[in-house]
């Protein structure tokens, strides 16, 4: 049994922890609001841009249209862009995304290398002895497209000059405050994609005829395909940031709850111990008084 003093110290330290975690929860709560606003604002554009890309990729003769659309006959090198966070204390957020990514690309005959966005992800990938060819960390909160376009550009460039035959994107999709899910998407070469997500899509008959281009086919495709691809990376980063803050908020709330429960338990133990010592003291005094009284009576 620890002494009463030790127990008091323990209770105080757990209380302090609960205060810290509660403060962190409040911070994350305000950050998550901003991040969610940002991600929802850019979602329509990113979704429509992706839609246009898949339409282009779905045309007849698309393979020869643009190098970013052509599939390589043999996939020897796969590049995976993994988006994690710079900071921890977000529950299983980083572990989940890294585990998901490494499991997904395990056992491929192709050589897999990673671009890590976020310090935690980089560390975990290195610990698992994965090949990390580039790292982007210390991203600003709510980054602008210009802040992160370098990541997408790097992926596009690596694909174009043959360093990678396929580029994949792995990130945590923000569904709501309590649900975030790891997602993997093929970025390059472009393919007619799965129907995508929560932005409402107008149902229309999609003509698979070739496009008319204005000004020229080359100019417009060179302009939009790399940019819209980079935009998907940008959107993924926003999704991941919203997920990160939501995950941290939930983790911190759980930590606060647990700490308070522990304080209650410790307080109970402490009170019991204290009562026990008081009882013992009283017994001592009573016994002493009894002995004194008896001694006086004998005199």
């Amino acid at each position, binding site marked *: 049994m620890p002494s009463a003093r030790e127990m008091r110290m323990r209770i105080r330290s757990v209380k302090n922890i609960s205060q810290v975690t509660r403060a962190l929860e409040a911070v994350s709560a305000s950050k998550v609001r901003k991040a969610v606003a940002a991600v929802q604002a850019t979602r*329509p*554009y990113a979704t429509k*841009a992706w839609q246009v890309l898949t339409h282009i990729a779905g045309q007849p003769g698309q393979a020869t249209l643009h190098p970013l659309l052509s599939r390589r006959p043999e996939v020897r090198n796969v590049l995976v862009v993994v988006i994690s966070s710079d900071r921890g204390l977000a529950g299983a957020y980083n572990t989940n995304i890294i585990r998901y990514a490494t499991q997904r690309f395990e056992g491929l005959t192709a050589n897999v290398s990673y671009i890590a966005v976020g310090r935690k992800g980089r560390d975990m990938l290195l610990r698992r002895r994965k090949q990390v060819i580039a790292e982007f960390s210390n991203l600003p909160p709510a980054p602008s497209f210009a802040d992160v376009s370098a990541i997408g550009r790097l992926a596009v460039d690596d694909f174009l000059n043959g360093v990678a035959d396929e580029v994949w994107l792995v990130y945590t999709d923000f569904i709501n405050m309590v649900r975030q899910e790891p997602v993997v998407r093929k970025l390059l070469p472009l393919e007619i994609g799965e129907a995508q997500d929560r932005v409402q899509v107008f149902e229309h008959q999609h003509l698979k005829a070739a496009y*008319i*281009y*204005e*000004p020229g086919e080359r100019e417009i495709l060179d*302009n*939009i395909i790399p940019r819209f691809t980079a935009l998907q990376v940008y959107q993924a980063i926003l999704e991941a940031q919203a997920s990160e803050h939501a995950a941290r908020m939930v983790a911190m709330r759980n930590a606060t709850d647990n700490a308070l429960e522990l304080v209650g338990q410790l307080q109970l133990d402490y009170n019991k111990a204290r009562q026990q010592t008081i009882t013992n003291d009283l017994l001592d005094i009573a016994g002493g008084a009894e002995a004194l009284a008896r001694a006086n009576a004998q005199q």
Partner: protein
Amino acid sequence: MPIRCEIVSQDKMVFEGDADIVILPGSEGEMGILPNHGPLLTSLKYGIITVRMGGREEHFTVAGGIAEVQPDIITILADAAENVEEIDVARAEAARKRAEEALAKGPPPDTDAYLAIEAALRRSNLRLEAAKRYRRSGPKPGRVGEER
């Protein structure tokens, strides 16, 4: 049958709705898109998008971007777009003044700064021009038979 028109800027959905005709400022010149147009991909320059439905017209400023046309839908991905009714004239005026002052101070330090000022000037000019010409209420009297 009308054609569906969706205008998205980088930070929000600007317009969604049906139209009889959509007039776009294509990089090679203005074009009017009617329903059942063939697939078309065009880049846009600074200008005004007009969406006409029934007797009503909506006008939007657009600062570059691209438009994808399918027989029953036009998707406009604008670098920046705004409903003419929502233009903040005072702000555009202030932006133009700032840009003009920056230019008056002498040549900017580098090309990037120059381009930024030029873009700001073009943007605010476009806004002011659009507000003056197309606004239903505001500096000029609205068109006949229309109320805000």
